[in-house]
């Protein structure tokens, strides 16, 4: 029982990332009708916002310590971060420690701008082109963005730890009456899950309870009619693209303490997120979220030793297996609108 519970918990954090990326993908597909293969790259850029802020905050000046020597026997160069020099050692160190949460504030404007530039600069020219063209151009863009990041940050993963307070794990099972040490769960993963629920709630709240959101939803349902009413729906959709980019970026920022980011992380998530969108139903926001969590949990169960012993290799194919079954039996996905992808 505790093993099952642990795998569900595990699936939830992975599912959180899938859900956030898939939510952005669906927003873009639902509003602009574009299949955006560069969405994984946006997730990766978000993660590198955290890396960048961490580098900026760690910018240091060098002093020479004559009492110690470096690996070549020369006097040791000691690096002191400007943050500690400006704000004092304690507060400065605390700012550096809290880099990842602080990166949220940094990433939102950056990602909005990246999203808007991407949409206005490139993707808008492909609205009337076939999906195959859109996929090619966005996939190409993803590769370009990935290579740019690699050029500046190198190919190796870059450790970006969570604040000291959230490192380590806690005995989640003990809270629910399981045996001690039966369900150990990392604190940051719990934070990530709660964070993603908050972002998802904020996006739904925004679409549901604001006039802007109402117009966007109306535009998703019938773009032409909304346009005939004199509303500039394209501008609103462009803003939605920026928001979708920001959602992917935030998912990336908060993911950095879970796995050290590298330039390739976007691609690792991209394909799975597309499966999530297809399973959830193209264009359905609740479907994307539901499918994200569902597939995260399924993947988690499929990676357990007993599942692998039962069906070797199941951990690698489970998600695609589900996608095949869903596409065969219910092509519009779990919560997709009737007619979408069924023609």
């Amino acid at each position, binding site marked *: 029982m505790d093993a099952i519970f642990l795998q569900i918990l595990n699936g939830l954090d992975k599912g959180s990332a899938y859900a956030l990326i898939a939510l952005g993908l669906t927003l873009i597909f639902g509003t602009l009708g574009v299949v955006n293969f560069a969405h994984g790259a946006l997730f990766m850029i978000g993660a590198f916002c955290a890396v960048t802020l961490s580098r900026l905050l760690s910018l240091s000046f060098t002093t020479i310590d004559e009492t110690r020597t470096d690996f070549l026997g020369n006097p040791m160069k000691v690096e002191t971060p400007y943050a500690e020099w400006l704000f004092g050692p304690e507060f400065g160190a605390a700012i550096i420690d809290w880099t990842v949460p602080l990166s949220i504030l940094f990433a939102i404007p950056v990602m909005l701008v990246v999203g808007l530039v991407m949409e206005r600069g490139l993707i808008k020219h492909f609205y009337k082109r076939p999906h195959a063209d859109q996929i090619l151009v966005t996939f190409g863009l993803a590769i370009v963005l990935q290579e740019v990041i690699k050029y500046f940050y190198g190919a190796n993963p870059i450790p970006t730890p969570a604040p000291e307070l959230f490192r380590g794990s806690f005995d989640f099972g003990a809270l629910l009456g399981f045996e001690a040490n039966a369900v150990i769960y990392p604190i940051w993963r719990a934070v990530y899950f709660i964070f993603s629920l908050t972002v998802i709630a904020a996006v739904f709240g925004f679409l549901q309870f604001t006039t802007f959101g109402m117009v966007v939803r109306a535009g998703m349902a019938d773009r032409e009619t909304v346009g005939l009413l004199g509303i500039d729906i394209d501008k609103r959709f462009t803003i939605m693209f920026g928001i979708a980019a920001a959602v992917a970026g935030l998912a990336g920022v908060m993911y950095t303490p879970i796995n050290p980011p590298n330039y390739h992380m976007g691609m690792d998530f991209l394909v799975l997120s597309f499966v999530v969108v297809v399973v959830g139903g193209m264009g359905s926001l609740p479907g994307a979220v539901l499918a994200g969590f569902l597939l995260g949990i399924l993947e988690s169960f499929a990676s357990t030793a007993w599942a692998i012993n039962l069906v070797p290799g199941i951990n690698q194919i489970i998600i695609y297996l589900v996608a095949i079954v869903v596409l065969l039996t219910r092509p519009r996905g779990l919560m997709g609108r009737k007619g979408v992808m069924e*023609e």
Partner: protein
Amino acid sequence: MSSSNYSRRRLLKTGAATGAALATPTLFTGAAWAQEQGFTNAPTGGTVTLGFNVPQTGPYADEGADELRAFELAVEHLNGEGDGGMLSTFSSQALEGSGILGKRVEYVTGDTQTKSDAARASARSMIEKDGVIMISGGSSSGVAVAVQGLCQEAGIIFMAGLTHSNDTTGKDRKANGFRHFFNAYQSAAAMGPVLESLYGNDRKAYHLTADYTWGWTTQESMQAATEALGWETVNNVLTPLASTDFSSYIAPVLQSGADVLFLNHYGGNMVNSLTNAVQFGLKEAQANGKDFQIVVPLYSELMARGAGQNIAGIPGSQNWDWKLENQLGEKYKGTNDFVQAFGEKYGFPPSQAAHTCYVQTLLYADAVQRAGSFNPCAVVEALEGFEFDGLGNGPTLYRAEDHQCFKDVVVVRGKENPENEFDLVEIVEVTPTEAVTYPHDHPMFAGGELGECNPGA
């Protein structure tokens, strides 16, 4: 949806063209390779070209970059530039800093992408287009085995870079291939006694293993070594090479009854699996009344940098470490000369990947010099059974039977309080050569034959 422009006729034509291209024989034709001297790419004129095939893109690109730095340095030293590095400490004094056999050394580089097919394609291009006489480098056993096979066919010497699978000099060994780097068996043999002294004889091990040749042989070697200590193996779970999140594999470990976790992972895999293991509290956990332990059989300084603080206290093995001579003395001479040359040029100490590539280049050049010929068969003869010293590892033997180097193995541990980003590992012990030597027909290395050396003509 868009309508497709493909007609059946066009599809058939495209298919036929692709089929024809794929069916074109890919075997090397003797005429293209053979030179009048009777071996492939025999150097004419005043220069000789070496090919350095390293991962310049992909997850091991930083490792590849360090290898390239080392190759560049080695070429400089061979041509008599710079401070000469290990040339002065190398026991064989055949090299004089005037190139190889009087020919100035030049080099070309290729990108393996850590993919066997890409590595073979780039090696093939270096051989056919650039006329290289030797290929070295690489950071994956899958790639090493593939490129070694190609070099054997082509009649080129392959001086392997970082490759740690038993198979490279085991079932996939080739007469034209040589490995200076140590292997999984040697890691396990070196780590066994250290693990016993650190964690005792009554332990239960759980393995997470990268699902390819290196992972399998590392796991097999570690399991054999620890079971010989009286440890029990609870489980071995194979993880896909492309995995990025290992939490689902890590989560069940504590409930399995195990009290030691072996991460048979390398590169990005290792960074992620170790980070996940630490996040799930394994480093602080208790199991079977003991402190839970994590072991990483193959260490790399570059990976340690990626894993950050998580590496602290975790044991593993290395082929070489830049602190060896400073800490363990004269026996490891050459180390400081190399670190000095590398550190002055690049501003940081070299990794073990850089070291093995530098040494391999020198060893090749020295063998040619001693043999008095670039003919691969002459080089093979000069390297087989060659005993040398002064290249940083202490006295070393290139065994004739399998072309594997035998030398001391360094057991290391992540440093608790590193002083800087290069000082991440501390040397725990150096296991002497005798303890890591095995018969060439050992079952873990069985199933392969060196065959005959191939000069290519």
